[in-house]
């Protein structure tokens, strides 16, 4: 099977090239079919790869394509590497991509940039798949940037809109902040370990596991982990770099579904999970990851509560759910994080596609205050949206329940010092999630229409859009069962080999350490002790008792139901008045409505100082000092020349006098200085 791995990224790449070069004049509207067929082919290969991997417990597929940078000891190969984790990601990415491609055919049907859209989408799919398949940090970084580029291109897809351009630039710039960290992390990794390869006895992971024996301090490991995490913060929209994601909703809705909900934003989570052997070596880095994740999930949920823009609510919900994944990573619940990543990809993709369908039927209206009663007009959209909302709210037995619960239980049971805190925050956020999700559902689909039925005629979307909704609703509802029973389902067993390599590598580390024993017994003994201490503090997947799991299941079900019930009381029966509560807790309400003032804070304390500094560099340093120097030199020479040119009179007599005087002076010097004639 490994000989066909290259097909997975190649097919979308081919579709991209064809649509980009020939889309405008030759293939035109057939560009959608080209992209869909390519993506479907990619999905088929991914499924085959998955079954191949599933065949045995520790099977890994690898295909070496070529060596990208051969330079002495620094070699960067382009090698595709599929283990269980990558295989899950491949399935998620290709499945959601294929469905979104189909949906886009309907959604973008009347758009002038149709072929351009279907060129960018496969480019994104190609980059994302390469990111997943990369076997070294540098290759991952390259495609990490490539998905960022696609994100930029697609957010600014309607480039005639000023707001879309600004959102695209914001996304790009905020991501750069994270990527600087990521880049520095890679450099530090190479500087420390002398390689960027993940796997093998000389790879980063093996070396990270026995870093103590290699003389690498724990502080360096923490620094590497935190720098890489900064990159993950940017891409996965974690506080403080989350501000770009809500604005990214300026892009077409299929883009929001595919890139800004299901796949690209999970790249950060994937990256941290991929490099977990590094994180395992640094307790403090994990604490930071957990805290950031927990805080982000809470922060985003509170903002989502008070937004009126349908897509913005779902965008903040995405940030919140990514926060769950990140705190699961930070508390060592790796499998739970990936599980939530997968279920989230399906139900959040579905939510966005549903929102797109609503927009389509409502003539691009996004304000939920101008909706209502859409249930009758668009039944398919309503039912699929409802299923996705149940999943997002974490109601049993929908997909989100199983994965979210596992993340919370994983955090609670972990050895990590902030695990309990993260779990409690996760539960509070779960209540908020159910509340804002059903606020959305009730405001959009229930009660009497708040728009003018004479002017707007909402209608169900066509088959191109409806079919993907229905197909996506199946995994959104049911895929949680692959993780059943909790902690012990087929999904967990499938992923086990990836996250249980750490102890094996530590054994390897001890072996390697013992080789040095002959030469330096004293120092190495401390090194071994340190390595063993590191092993002892590692946070393993702790298998929790059934009682805990069931308890948490019941608690989170109660929380989800009560959240939905509060939303029902508020937005259906009107027992609770949202405006009254808003007025009662005005400062808090203002804080949430203004997104915790983060945009303003960034604008005032980061953007404006930088802007002023740039203006200073331009107005003063560049214009005055640099240009001033250059122009000053020219002006000086000009002024001197202006005076000098009067010497050139054009009168023959003056020149002749000059010649004569010169002669007299030269002869005079000769006579005075060297001749003996007058001495």
């Amino acid at each position, binding site marked *: 099977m490994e000989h066909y791995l290259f097909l997975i990224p190649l097919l979308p790449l081919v579709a991209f090239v064809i649509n980009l070069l020939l889309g405008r004049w030759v293939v035109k509207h057939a560009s959608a079919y080209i992209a869909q067929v390519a993506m479907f082919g990619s999905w088929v290969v991914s499924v085959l790869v998955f079954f191949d991997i599933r065949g045995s417990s520790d099977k890994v597929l690898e295909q070496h394509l070529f060596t990208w940078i051969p330079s002495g000891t620094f070699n960067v190969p382009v090698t595709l590497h599929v283990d269980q984790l990558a295989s899950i990601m491949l399935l998620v990415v290709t499945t959601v991509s294929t469905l979104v491609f189909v949906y886009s055919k309907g959604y973008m049907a009347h758009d002038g940039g149709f072929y351009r859209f279907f060129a960018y989408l496969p480019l994104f799919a190609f980059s994302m798949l390469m990111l997943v398949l990369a076997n070294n940090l540098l290759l991952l970084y390259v495609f990490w940037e490539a998905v960022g580029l696609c994100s930029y291109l697609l957010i600014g897809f309607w480039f005639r809109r000023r707001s879309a351009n600004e959102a695209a630039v914001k996304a790009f710039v905020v991501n750069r902040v994270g990527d600087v960290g990521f880049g520095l992390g890679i450099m530090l990794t190479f500087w420390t370990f002398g390689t960027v390869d993940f796997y093998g006895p000389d790879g980063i992971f093996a070396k990270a596991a026995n870093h103590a024996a290699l003389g690498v301090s724990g502080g360096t490991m923490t620094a590497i982990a935190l720098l890489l995490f900064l990159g993950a913060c940017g891409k996965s929209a974690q506080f403080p770099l989350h501000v770009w994601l809500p604005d990214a909703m300026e892009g077409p809705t299929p883009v929001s579904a595919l890139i800004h909900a299901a796949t690209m934003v999970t790249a950060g989570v994937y990256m941290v999970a991929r490099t977990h052997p590094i994180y395992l070596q640094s307790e403090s880095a994990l604490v930071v990851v957990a805290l950031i994740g927990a805080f982000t999930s809470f922060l985003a949920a509170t903002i989502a509560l008070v937004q009126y823009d349908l897509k913005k609510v779902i965008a903040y919900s995405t940030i919140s759910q990514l926060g769950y994944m990140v705190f699961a990573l930070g508390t060592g619940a790796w499998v739970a994080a990936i599980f939530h990543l997968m279920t989230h990809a399906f139900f959040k993709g579905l939510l966005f596609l549903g929102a797109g369908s609503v927009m389509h039927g409502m003539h691009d209206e996004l304000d939920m205050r101008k909706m209502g009663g859409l249930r009758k007009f668009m039944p398919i959209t309503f039912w699929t949206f409802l299923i996705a909302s149940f999943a997002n709210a974490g109601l049993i037995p929908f997909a989100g329940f199983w994965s979210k619960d596992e993340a919370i239980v994983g955090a609670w049971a972990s050895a990590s010092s902030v695990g309990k805190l993260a779990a409690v925050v996760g539960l509070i956020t779960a209540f908020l999630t159910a509340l804002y999700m059903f606020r959305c559902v009730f405001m959009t689909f229930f009660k009497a229409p708040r728009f003018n039925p004479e002017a707007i005629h909402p209608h169900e979307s066509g088959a191109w859009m409806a079919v993907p909704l229905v197909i996506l609703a199946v995994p959104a509802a049911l895929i949680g069962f692959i993780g059943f029973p909790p902690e012990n389902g087929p999904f967990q067993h499938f992923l086990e080999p990836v996250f249980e390599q750490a102890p094996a590598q530590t054994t390897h580390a001890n072996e390697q350490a013992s080789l040095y024993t002959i030469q330096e017994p004293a120092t190495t003994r401390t090194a071994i002790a340190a390595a063993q201490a590191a092993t002892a503090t590692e946070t393993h997947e702790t298998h929790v008792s059934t009682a805990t799991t069931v308890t948490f299941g019941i608690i989170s079900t109660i929380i989800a139901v009560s959240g939905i019930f509060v939303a029902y009381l508020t937005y259906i029966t009107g027992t609770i008045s949202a405006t009254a509560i808003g007025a009662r807790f005005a400062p808090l309400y203002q804080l949430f409505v203004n997104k915790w003032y983060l945009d303003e804070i960034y604008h005032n304390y980061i953007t404006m100082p930088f802007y002023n500094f740039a203006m200073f560099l331009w107005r003063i340093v560049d214009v005055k000092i640099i240009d001033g120097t250059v122009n000053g030199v020219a002006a000086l020479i000009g002024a001197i020349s202006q005076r000098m040119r009067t010497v050139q009179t*054009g009168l023959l007599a003056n020149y002749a006098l000059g010649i004569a005087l010169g002669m007299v002076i030269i002869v005079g010097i000769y006579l005075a200085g060297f001749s003996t004639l007058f001495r």
Partner: protein
Amino acid sequence: MGHLGVEHYLFLSAILFIIGLMGVLVRRNLLIIFMCVELMMTAVNISLVAFGTATDTLNGQAFVVFTVAVAAAEAAVGLGIILALSRRGKTVDVDDMHSLRD
């Protein structure tokens, strides 16, 4: 008056040279300037001959023969240029000849 030494010829040469130089410097008529240049060249020739006689060699005299030949050629070219200029500008005043300056 005693013997005519080389100094006397040199004084004559110097006086002729200064007269020629002054002519070049103060006169405006191109033809006069040209004649003054010839005068300066003659002054040089005199000093050359004087040195040749004084040192009892023929080098000076031989040099003068060449100088006179070159001067003849130069005179032909110089007069030709002056003639052409006077035809073109209807004048031989050097102060009026500044077309290369502006």
